[in-house]
């Protein structure tokens, strides 16, 4: 006989404002096997948890249903609370009566009250059959792998190596440093990029804890958090076949960086056709040449020092119709710096900036930008340039004047397009190898936009730098260090505890047909020919249930989510609500 405890949370007015929490509890108390039922304003609060713990102790509860918000929020809170007073945490189930009930029925209090009761009753049906499970323990390989050695990858690797962990760094190019190698000087203090990069690159190359593979790519990834097997292929550089080796690591940092949107895609600006229409990184190259040679900035077509330069921001950004919908975040900052450095290098040169909104929102950049406009005479014109064409040996532009709104024509020697920042080529392959999801624009998707900004959708895989979203060097460095912190927390454990809510196979029912093997998105299934049934690698299994649905013999079952439990829930729910109303309730 179970002794089930039910705890209904008001969530302030979020639930109690819609659901009659007192009536629900009154009714729940009448259900068989329910030994205790109560409600409270915030069950997740300290006093709320104390109520739960006290009831477990005092009433010898054997299973719990906490009716509250989504399990994504506080399942862990209540499992920990139960465990702290000796109840197996997997005997605790959350009944979601907020997102799936009170929030969607705000105008229907009776419906919401009845539905909350039924959700709780169905969850009781399930929790009755829950088994006491133990977390799966897997060892941790305390080595990390960093994919991409731009400033993000270098920073993450150095932090990890300095903290004493062996770190493998894989870089596609022959040289490390990524895009920073192509940048002349940085905003807002004009520090040469090389002064930032060179000491760090050297530290990385010389670090005893770092293994560096350049001209290399990740070609295969197996395993799971704490235990990845990563195949790295290195181009020997002599035209021969790539050398491959396998590295065992416990965590992976994805710092694959960005590319610029091709200028060829901007036909109205003559991108790709007109030699003096270039992108921001190409202009960095011109600036670098200028600093190196002690000469003015010269344009690509004929090497003449430039006298009139127009910078066009938002080239391909903030353009959902034709190009990219998002803001590329860094262009306002670097364009202002480029215009400023140009004015320093080519005295008397005119610098125009076509902008939409000036987005100098990083520390000290607003002040820097204002100073450049006021003291360096950079002209900011609000409005998108419509068109650029060649007129003799000069370029000509059409745009609208910021004050009068009238159309004006501008002449220029050089046009610099601040093209959109896009994910680096090859991101899709890395994404699929690591099972780290990307968003609609190809940027790696963090697991929570606010509170988990460096965690990917796969445990043990972390995100740093512009591959996750465009960002400046400062934010890139911070994010890279954040991945290092997450990995150090991971590596503090000798073993990792994994959720035991995984698939279980009944060998008697399994016919070893192998349908589950290709269907498993995590590579967790394997037919053991000798034993005659399909095994589950519990460390890899995420408990998604794909094999359960696919198995023709019903040999696959999810632990604590068995067919009997799910059907039981549906039956209770359907009996109460009527099938017509809630055919999709499951």
């Amino acid at each position, binding site marked *: 006989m179970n002794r089930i405890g039910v705890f209904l949370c008001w969530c302030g007015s979020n639930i109690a404002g819609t659901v009659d929490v007192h009536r629900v509890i009154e009714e729940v108390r009448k259900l068989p096997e329910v030994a205790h039922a109560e409600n409270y304003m915030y069950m997740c609060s300290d006093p709320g948890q104390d109520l739960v713990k006290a009831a477990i102790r005092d009433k010898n509860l054997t299973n719990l249903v906490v009716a509250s918000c989504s399990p994504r929020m506080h399942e862990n809170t209540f499992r920990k609370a139960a465990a702290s007073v000796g109840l197996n945490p997997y005997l605790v189930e959350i009944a979601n009566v907020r997102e799936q009930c009170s929030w969607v029925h705000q105008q229907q209090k009776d419906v919401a009250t009845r539905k909350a009761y039924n959700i709780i009753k169905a969850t009781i049906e399930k929790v009755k059959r829950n088994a006491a499970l133990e977390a799966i323990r897997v060892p941790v390989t305390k080595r990390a792998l960093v994919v991409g050695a731009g400033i993000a990858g270098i920073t993450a690797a150095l932090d990890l190596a300095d903290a004493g962990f062996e770190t493998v760094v894989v870089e596609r190019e022959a040289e490390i440093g990524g895009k920073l190698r192509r940048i002349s000087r940085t905003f807002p203090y004009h520090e040469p990029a090389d002064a930032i990069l060179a000491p760090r690159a050297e530290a990385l190359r010389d670090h005893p804890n770092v293994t560096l593979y350049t001209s290399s790519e990740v070609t295969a990834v197996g395993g799971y958090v704490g235990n990845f097997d990563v195949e790295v292929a290195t181009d020997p550089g002599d035209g021969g076949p790539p050398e491959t080796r396998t590295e065992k690591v416990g965590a992976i940092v994805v710092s694959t960086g960005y590319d610029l949107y091709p200028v060829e895609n901007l036909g109205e600006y003559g991108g790709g056709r007109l030699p003096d229409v270039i992108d921001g990184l190409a202009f960095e190259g011109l600036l670098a040449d200028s600093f190196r040679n002690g000469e003015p900035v010269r344009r690509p077509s004929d090497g003449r020092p430039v006298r009139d330069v127009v910078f066009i921001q*938002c080239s391909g950004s*903030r353009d959902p119709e034709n190009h990219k919908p998002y803001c590329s975040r860094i262009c306002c900052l670097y364009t202002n710096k480029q215009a400023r450095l140009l004015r320093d290098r080519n005295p008397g040169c005119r610098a125009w900036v076509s902008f939409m909104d000036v987005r100098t929102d990083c520390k000290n950049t607003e002040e820097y930008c204002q100073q450049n406009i006021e003291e360096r005479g950079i002209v900011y014109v609000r409005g998108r340039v419509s*068109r650029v064409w060649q007129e003799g040996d000069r370029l000509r532009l059409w*745009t*609208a004047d910021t004050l009068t*709104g009238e159309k004006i024509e501008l002449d220029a020697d050089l046009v610099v397009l601040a093209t959109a920042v896009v994910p680096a080529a090859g991101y899709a392959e890395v994404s699929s190898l690591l099972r780290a999801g990307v968003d609609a624009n190809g940027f790696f998707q963090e697991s929570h936009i606010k509170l988990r900004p460096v965690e990917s959708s796969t445990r043990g895989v972390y995100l740093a730098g512009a591959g996750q979203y465009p960002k400046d060097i400062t934010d890139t460095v911070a994010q890279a260090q954040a991945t290092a912190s997450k990995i150090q927390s991971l590596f503090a454990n000798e073993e990792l505890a994994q959720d035991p809510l995984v698939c279980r196979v009944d060998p008697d029912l399994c016919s070893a047909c192998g349908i589950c093997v290709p269907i498993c998105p995590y590579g967790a299934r394997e037919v053991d020919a000798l034993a005659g049934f399909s095994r589950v690698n519990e460390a890899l299994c995420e408990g998604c249930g794909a094999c359960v649905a696919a198995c023709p013999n019903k040999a696959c079952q999810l632990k604590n989510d068995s067919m009997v439990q799910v059907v039981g829930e549906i039956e209770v729910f359907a009996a109460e609500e009527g099938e017509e109303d809630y055919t999709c309730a499951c």
Partner: protein
Amino acid sequence: MNAFARQIQERSGQNLSRCYQCKKCSGGCPTARWFEWPNHSVVRMIQRGLKDELLGSRAIWMCITCETCGARCPNGIYLSPIMDALRALAVEEGRPAAEPAVLAFHKAFVASAKRFGRVHEATMLAAFMLKSRLFLQSGFLGEAAGGLKLLARGKIPFRPSSVKGKAQIDRIFAESDLKL
């Protein structure tokens, strides 16, 4: 959103609230120099409900549907259907056109299409000249000279041709409230 903006949005099928005033439309417009306010301002004025100003403006008649602004708009707003809607509304409400010659031409052209099914340039041009009273203006001689050049090359036939399926043409015009 005001009633005028809603009306224009419905007629044109364009979502005006997507506009973030980047002015790329105005920068590329070949004829904006003859507008009272450039393209982006026209959108803004619709948003602000300035109906009288717009329906009485030169801008609506100086837009010649080249579609440059729409093709380059980062938010996919096409100004030509918006201008179409403004022009049609001005005609519907019988507003005096700030560019009478342009309206006269369009009316002469469509009247010719309505009458014969095809446009007959000689009669159409004659009607236009009369309606627009263009021959009273100083530029007329140049226009006439151009026309004469075409006539001299046998390019403008004297006799109009007509389509047989005129009933269908009539039904098209009957479906609209267009008065010519």
